[in-house]
Each structure stands twice: as C-alpha cells, then as structure tokens.
C-alpha cells in the first residue's frame, strides 16, 4: 500500500499523467473538429463538382460544350441535347409538391397529436402514439413501394372519375400523398412532445376562467405549443425536400414543366438526381451535382426563413 502511494505521489508519475491527459484531450478534440468539418467538406466537394458543367468543357461527339448557368437556373426543359439543361421548373415543382404535402400533413399531425395527448383515453392515446412511432421508423423505400402499389392506383381511379388520362397514376398527386404520409409522423411526434410540455397552470387557468375542455385544447393548448409544432414543421419540410427514393418511384420524371396539374407527372430535384443514373462520368453525371447544389441552397434558405418565422410566431403573448 505504502509503495503504491509513493508511486502515485512520485512527481515523475504525476507529470506523466498530465501529459497523458493532454494527449487524450488533443485526440478527442481532433475527432470533434473532424466531425464538425464534415458539413463544410460536403458543401465544398459538391460545389466543386457541381459548378464544373458551367466552367469546364465536355467533349460530346467530338465537339466541346459547356452548360449555360442562367439557362440552367431558368430552364423549363430538363434536357435538350446536347448541352442545354434547365432546372428552374424543377425548383418550382419541388416547392409546389412540398407545399401541398404540408397542407395535408400539418393539420393531420396537429390534430393527431392533440388527440394523443389530450382527447383520447390514455390507452388509445398511447397505442396511436406507438403507431406514429412505427410509421416514423418505416424506411422510405417501403413508402415508395406502397406508393407504387396502392397510391398510384387510387390516383388513377380519381383521374378516371374526372376523365383525365394519367400515366398510370404516376403524378404530382401521388408524389404529394407519399410525401405527406412520410412527414406526418415526424411532425406528429414533435407536436405531441410540445403539447405534452404545455404547463398545467396555463390549462388550469383557462378552465378556471370558464372555458370548456375542448375550447382549452384547441385555443390555449395549441397556441402555447405552436413553437414546438413549428419546429416539427421545419423538420418535416427538411425531410420532404430531401426525400429521394420514395417519390422518385411515383413522380414520373416529367421532361419539362412546371407541373401544376395534380394528375400530370412531375419532377423534383431529388428525383432528377436519382433517375436514369447509369454513367458515372461525363456531363449527364456531373449536372446531377449541380442539382445537388440547388437542393442544398433551397434547404438552407427554407430553414433560415422558417426559423425566422418561428421566432416571430413563437412568442406566447
């Protein structure tokens, strides 16, 4: 014991341990810096590759071409051989589809989360809550499969009702429905958390003032939880904009646009990147990275915008 203690108190040993601690700290710090730099590296690499179609020459059939940047931003046709690419209509399509999906998903999610935490009997509420969790954990490829197998059939049926010739149900509406179904669980889970977090005092205060339970739920609880609900919406928008595999199975990759008719095929940024991916060289491959840049920028801008809005409406007066 005595020997062990002297060993511990030995100044050499203490110095040794201090050096050890410094090395450990340095290693952990290096790892953290690396992890934090991932996002920077992602953006840099995608940018370098993505601007290459606009600044480098590509040889197609012996003639060298490059893509016109402004034409790319404004274009209403994805591809006109050999070198005219347009993504303007794709941006509009992406926003349109996301907006419609939100119109379906937000009310559904908000009412469901209110049901789960306030209206339903406890047991029913927890079952529904578990179902929502399950829906959230289903991989997107399965939603895509479901979209192709069921949703396109339903859309085709409705298109038939209004005598519209749709491409076997592959359409804007199918895309919107698949997206909505996919983001509902995300928004519902966050809304439920924030509704559960509403202080009992506020609810009791409302009840004491003579408001009925339902009035309290719809007017007081929802208002108090709106900041959290909006956080869910932001997450949902992010997921909707970035979703690729599921919607590329039902979108149909229209050649031009923008598409506003619900029964026509559409094309979003992500489906453009995924579909027809065969070559891993050349202009047709590199231009997908340019679309990637657009996607990153749009997600970033929407996020900033929504966060500003959230800060504005988030304050409970």
């Amino acid at each position, binding site marked *: 014991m005595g020997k062990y203690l002297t060993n511990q108190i030995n100044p050499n040993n203490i110095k040794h341990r201090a050096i050890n601690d410094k090395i450990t700290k340095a290693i952990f710090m290096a790892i953290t810096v690396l*992890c934090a*730099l991932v996002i920077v590296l992602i953006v840099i690499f*995608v940018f370098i590759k993505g601007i290459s179609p606009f600044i480098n020459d590509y040889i197609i059939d012996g003639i060298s071409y490059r893509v016109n940047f402004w034409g790319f931003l404004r274009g209403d046709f994805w591809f006109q051989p050999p070198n005219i690419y347009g993504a303007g209509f794709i941006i509009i399509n992406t926003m349109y589809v996301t907006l419609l999906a939100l119109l379906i998903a937000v009310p559904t999610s908000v009412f469901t989360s209110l049901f789960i935490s306030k209206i339903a009997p406890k047991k029913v509420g927890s079952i529904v809550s578990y179902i929502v969790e399950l829906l959230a954990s289903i991989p997107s490829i399965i939603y895509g*499969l479901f979209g192709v197998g069921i949703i396109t059939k339903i859309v085709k049926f409705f298109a038939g009702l209004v005598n519209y010739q749709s491409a076997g149900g592959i359409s804007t509406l199918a895309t919107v429905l698949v997206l909505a179904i996919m983001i509902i669980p995300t928004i519902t889970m966050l809304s439920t958390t924030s509704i559960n977090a509403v202080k009992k005092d506020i609810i009791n205060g409302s009840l004491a003032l003579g408001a009925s339970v339902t009035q309290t739920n719809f007017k007081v609880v929802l208002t108090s939880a709106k900041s959290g609900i909006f956080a869910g919406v932001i997450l949902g928008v992010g997921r909707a904009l970035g979703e690729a*595999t599921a919607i590329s199975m039902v979108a149909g990759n229209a050649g031009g646009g923008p598409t506003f008719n619900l029964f026509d095929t559409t094309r979003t940024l992500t489906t453009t990147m995924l579909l027809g*991916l065969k070559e891993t060289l050349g202009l047709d491959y590199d231009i997908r990275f340019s679309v990637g840049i657009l996607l990153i920028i749009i997600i970033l801008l929407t996020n900033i915008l929504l966060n500003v809005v959230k800060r504005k409406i988030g304050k409970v007066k």
Partner: protein
Amino acid sequence: MRKIKEILLNAITYLFSGFEVLVLGAILVYIFSNGFSSLSLELLTGNYYEKVETLEYTRQETIKDYLNPGLDDSYFSSKWGISFIDTENKAGEKIVMINYVDEYSPLLSMTNSSTKEYASLVEKQVITKVILEDLDGNMYLGFAKNGADSIAEAFDKGDIITNLVVTTSGGGIRGSLLTTLYLILLTLLIALPLGVGAAIYLTQYAPKNKITSIMQSMIDMTSGIPSIIFGLVGAIVFIPFMNNLIGSDGGSIASGALTLAIMLLPIIIRTTEEAINVIPTTYRNASLALGASSTQTTFKVILPNALGGILTSVLLSIGRIIGESAALIYAVGTAIKDTAIINQKSTSLAVHIWSLMSGESPNFELSCAISIVILVIVLVLSIITKLVAKKLNKFEVE
C-alpha cells in the same frame, strides 16, 4: 350550438388519428398480402440469380440400394438414392424437381464439368437433362419434358453420370442480407469511435466558448443534410479514395460504409452527449477527488455510465442503415450480387428493392417480401431500443 361545435372538433381529431392508423394498416396489409407467400428460408439463404450447372459423376462405386422415402407422386431411383417430382415453375412450364436426396447418396459429391469443382445435388433443384452410361457403355437419356419417371428410370439404369444439367432457382436475397450486415458492422466500426469521441470532448473537455458552440451547431446542421447529398459525397470522395486504398473498381461496400458513417455521426454524437449529460457530476468529481486522472475518469467512470446511451445510438444507427437507400445508390451502386465482398459493388436490402422496382418489369412480390424482412428488423430494433432506454436510464430521476 357550442356543444355541437365541440363534438365536431373532437370528432375531427378522431378522424385524423384514424387516418394515421389506416395508413399503417394499409401499408402492412399491402406488404404482407403481396410478400408473405414468397417468404421462406430459401428467400433468405438463396441466390438471387438462377444458376445453371452441368455436373458429372464418373467414379465407380459398389452401388447400394437406397431406401425409398415413399414421397407422394415422386419417382425414386434406389440405385442413386434420389427422388424426383413433376411440378410447374412460376411461368407455368413443366419442370422436374428433386424432392429428396439420401444422406449417403453419391450425388452429394459430384463434379462441375467445366470448373471441375465439387458440387452436390440438393432438394428443390430442377433437372432439365441427364445422360448416364452403364458399365458396358450403353447410354441412357432422361429429359424433363418426358416427366420425372423417365429421369428416374435413366438414373436406375446407368452407372456413370456423364452429363447432368441442373438449375438452382434464384430470387433469394442472401447477398443483400450479408451486404446489409457488412454495412452495419463497417459503418459502426468507423462511426462509433468518432461519434463517441466527439461527444466526450463536447461534454467533458470543451471550454464553453464560441468555437465550441459553432462546432456543436455544425454537427447539428449535418443531420439536416438529406441522405442523397451524402450519396453524392460518397461518389466523389469515398469511391476514388477506396479505389486507391483497397483496389475496388467503382462503388464498393467500403465506400458505402464510409458514406453512412459520416451520415450517422450527428445521431451518435447527439445520443451519446445526452447520455453523458445525465451522469451526475458527483461521479466525475468523486473520481477526480480520489486521484484518478481525467483520462482515467473518462474511460472508467464516464464511458461505462454512458453505455446505455451509446447502445441506443447503435440501435438507431442500425435502423437508419437498414432503411437507407438514396445515399447507397450513389455511393455503392445498384447491381444486385450474390456475394458480399468489401471492395465490390453490392446492394443492401433497401437498394435491392430499388433495383427490383426501377427495372423494366418491377417485381412486386419479391420487393414486398424484402420489405417484410426490413419491417420485422425495424420493429424488433424499436422494441429493443425501448427496453434499453427503460433498463439503462438509471439517472433519469425527476
């Protein structure tokens, strides 16, 4: 009037919740009704591609009389200990299938005519043609189109098999299952040390200043990047990197694992941080007061106590890896393989579905069967995650 309005409002919430329940129900019913019939052990262990082999058996042994198992509608060759049955394949063509092979049958040790490799006949293989010779050099032919009885008869007459064309049916997902497993292992091997390390730094060592909070928010921002962008990065960074490092040609499981690893870092860091943050500071202070160095405290006090959170992050990561498709389509490729080799292309289960569905003729049945496999794994993972969270959050005292 107010009452009616309130009932209506409440009814609306019931309606919308019912919609979510309906969606889950519809997905499950659709997936199971389409895929359940093709779910079997062969699906999990079988090859995806149909394999046609020409086999031979030229050694001469004393022929035993094998016992007939007496299966219905089958034709048994007692000389070789094998039984055949007439049946139809999925396209409705007549085929002859092996439905029993004796465990001592010489047919278990045949040779592949072209590669000279060892091969054996197993049940469920389909025989199209067989040519046998007896010891006097007489030839006996059996063709599938003449039925199982003609093949069994040819077998009974001959002593040497000179030519046997046998087809092993495809449609299995063994390759994709293995690939998914490899991806999980490799990804966690890369991502876990990095993620846990970063979480330890951010919670234990990092000074509370601007740089730390910038790093923290950069890591948070990474989780907002859609997976397809990670796929792009995998394609331009990790594929060339791995091509140089391990000599792969184009996408590989290794490049996919690296891509998934950087994608999962934010989840692992966040979950581990949360687990470390709930460890009472008294633990850390007590350890330091007892004379342990900060390194010792980190590895012997903090890490063991954060194990539950780390386990949760592993489970969450596995779920993400199994479901991921967009990133892997770019970073690995969509070529379905029967073997999983780290420096070669292959598909995970999810990408397997993508490949099946994006082809000329989508295969709904197999896609749904794979979906069932994925759903079962995801369900089990979510249950385990709940149990782990319940068991291991000993610090969560309110």
